[in-house]
């Protein structure tokens, strides 16, 4: 092997990692095409084009909106993916997200003594802390009391939902008429010039801006931080080791109870950040509605994490992809197709990613076997007994 191939080797590894996802996406789209054909064959080709061009159909505004919708998906994806990496199933991102959102909005509305340029930072950090506290509960139950984290998370989702409804109704952030929280424009995340890039120029010179804001950059930054923590720190290594084998980690001197609690806290903080980033969005960002429905982003996070193979960098792309194709579903309504087809396609992609992973493993195993055989053959060559090369 000559020098300079290290880069190509790395590139090859990355493309081999991405390949199964691409195959799964292709099969998922083909599946969607079949459904388009069944429901209305005359427009199916246009429909497929519309899905494939996703958010780009809306020009720069559409592209910006993809980034806007991807922000919470990346965050909940990171939350679930991080827990997966440490051997835990965080199905409680919904509750953690809601807790974070409530705490962020509460501080934004009440801590007006904080200088305004700093306010959103404080609110976002509060949201992360609240999420971490809410994530810590299943962590404590699992680590200390051996309660399965899935059941504790499901219970915490509902306790969080009704608890936040109660707290909203009994605090000064409740807008009684609209049955939701008050607007907090003064604590909005800055746009950092992203709206200058992602807008459509109208004929009149009016800028039709997308909803994109600095949140997407924060989400990407947090993903990179998580990648670093998981792959480059002792702390991350310990958490992962606990996920692989609790008993072995304890034997190796890792405090496995503490690791479980920390993992759930970090996962909770990431989901809490998702809540902060949704509700601190600029210009009349959304408000928490007092309803009895769990935040759907918590469950989409599972899909995003699985598509991104729980790798923080992969999750950036899978979050962007899910937001992109969902925007395609939004535009698909122009052709009289139902947008639910996008969920069907995403479900198909996730299902087929299981197949694709299998194919990849088969290829990897075959590759290992071949290189092992090569080595044997090389040894044989050294022994000056040439074998047929053409047979391989």
């Amino acid at each position, binding site marked *: 092997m000559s020098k300079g191939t290290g880069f190509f080797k790395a590139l090859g590894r990355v493309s081999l990692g991405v390949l199964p996802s691409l195959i799964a996406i292709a099969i998922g789209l083909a599946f969607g095409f079949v459904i388009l054909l069944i429901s209305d064959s005359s427009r199916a080709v246009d429909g497929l084009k519309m899905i494939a061009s996703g958010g780009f159909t809306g020009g720069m505004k559409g592209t910006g909106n993809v980034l806007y919708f991807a922000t919470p998906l990346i965050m909940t994806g990171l939350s679930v993916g991080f827990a997966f990496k440490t051997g835990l199933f965080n199905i409680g991102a919904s509750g953690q997200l809601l807790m974070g959102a409530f705490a962020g909005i509460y501080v934004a509305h009440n801590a007006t003594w904080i200088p305004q340029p700093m306010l959103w930072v404080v609110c976002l950090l509060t949201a992360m802390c609240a999420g971490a506290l809410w994530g810590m509960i299943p962590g404590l139950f699992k680590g200390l009391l051996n309660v399965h984290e899935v059941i504790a998370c*499901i*219970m915490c989702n509902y306790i969080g939902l009704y608890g936040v409804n109660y707290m909203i109704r009994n605090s000064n952030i409740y807008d009684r008429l609209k049955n939701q929280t008050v607007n907090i424009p003064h604590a909005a995340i800055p746009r950092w010039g992203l709206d200058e890039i992602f807008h459509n120029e109208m004929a009149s010179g009016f800028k039709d801006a997308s909803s994109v804001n600095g949140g997407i950059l924060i989400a990407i930054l947090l993903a990179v931080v998580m990648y670093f923590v998981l792959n480059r720190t002792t702390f991350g290594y310990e958490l992962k080791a606990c996920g692989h084998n609790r008993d072995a980690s304890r034997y190796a001197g890792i405090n496995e109870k503490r690791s479980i609690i920390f993992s759930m806290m970090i996962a909770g903080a990431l989901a809490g950040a998702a809540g902060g980033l949704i509700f601190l969005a600029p210009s009349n960002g959304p408000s928490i509605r007092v309803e009895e429905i769990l935040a759907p982003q918590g469950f989409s996070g599972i899909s995003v994490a*699985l598509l991104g193979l729980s790798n923080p960098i992969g999750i950036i792309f899978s979050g962007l992809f899910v937001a992109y194709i969902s925007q395609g579903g939004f535009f698909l309504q122009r052709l009289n197709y139902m947008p639910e087809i996008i969920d069907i396609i995403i479900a198909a992609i*996730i*299902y087929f990613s*299981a*197949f694709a992973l299998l194919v990849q493993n088969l290829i990897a195993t075959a590759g290992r076997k071949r290189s092992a055989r090569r080595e044997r053959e090389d040894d044989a060559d050294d022994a000056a007994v040439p074998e047929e090369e053409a047979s391989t």
Partner: protein
Amino acid sequence: MSDLFDTIVFLVQQMWFFSIPLLIVALGGMFSERSGVVNIALEGIMVVGAFCSILFINLMQDSMSGQGLLLLAMLVAMGSGVLFSLLHAYASINLRSNQTISGTALNMFAPAFAIYTARVIQTNSVQQVEFTNTFRIPSVPLLGDIPILGPLFFQRTYITTFIGIAILIIATFVLYKTRFGLRLRACGEHPQAADSMGVNVFKIRYAGVLLSGALAGLGGLVFVVPTSTNFNATVAGYGFLALAVLIFGQWKPLRILVAALFFGLMKTVASAYSGISFLQGLPIPSDIYKMIPYLATLIVLAFTSKRSQAPRASGVPYDRGGR
């Protein structure tokens, strides 16, 4: 005194509507997990089962009504649940894939499929599937007239309640007293050992997952019929709650019954407290009442889970070469 008795009767009658679907679905999950396959797709299977059977009722109710229609709809629910769970079985048994992946895919697919299909086949693209409830039994003949027990168990009820209890009895018998049950449990604890004794692990696990599909599909219908007059592509998280009941019940049928009854009773109190005179007077806001079932479950779990242990091989794809 009679006031108190009326309250208790009301609570118990309501409790069945919450507990029985949880019981049926959790028992389904039990068959799957005891065979070694984690099934988080229970929610999605419930949605598909409820959708297909409610659609069946919607289409057939002009020519049929009453218990006959409901029984046929239950068969439809179970059949659609089995077909849908085949996807999970194939991915997790044949392909040995991560069982969370296909479960999540099924959960995502089910509501989208229900909404999409309903809007395509119904006029005006309505996504709710309406049905007329002709299934309530005011009082079971003879049994309903028994003092005390009659009102508690046999009045204002549905045939589904008794089928749920029957399923519990059959499931307990099958799991502990039949050859199939023993093999199922072996495959969930140590599949290699079962294989070495000539048990076909693939077949047993397929049976486990398909049974869970049938029961979860049925549970979807059983959940919707007493509580609503239309199906709107959701079972309100009951599939996940059934998963919780399954873990709460520590993968054992009778404990699952206790967990389902406990949770159902708490849920009834939470939703019907305003009709109970001695609770109405207490200064507790409604949000807190709604929180109680979940909070109580968590607290009970804190005291009972110290030695809780999932089936050892549950979630692990079967590898013949493994140890």
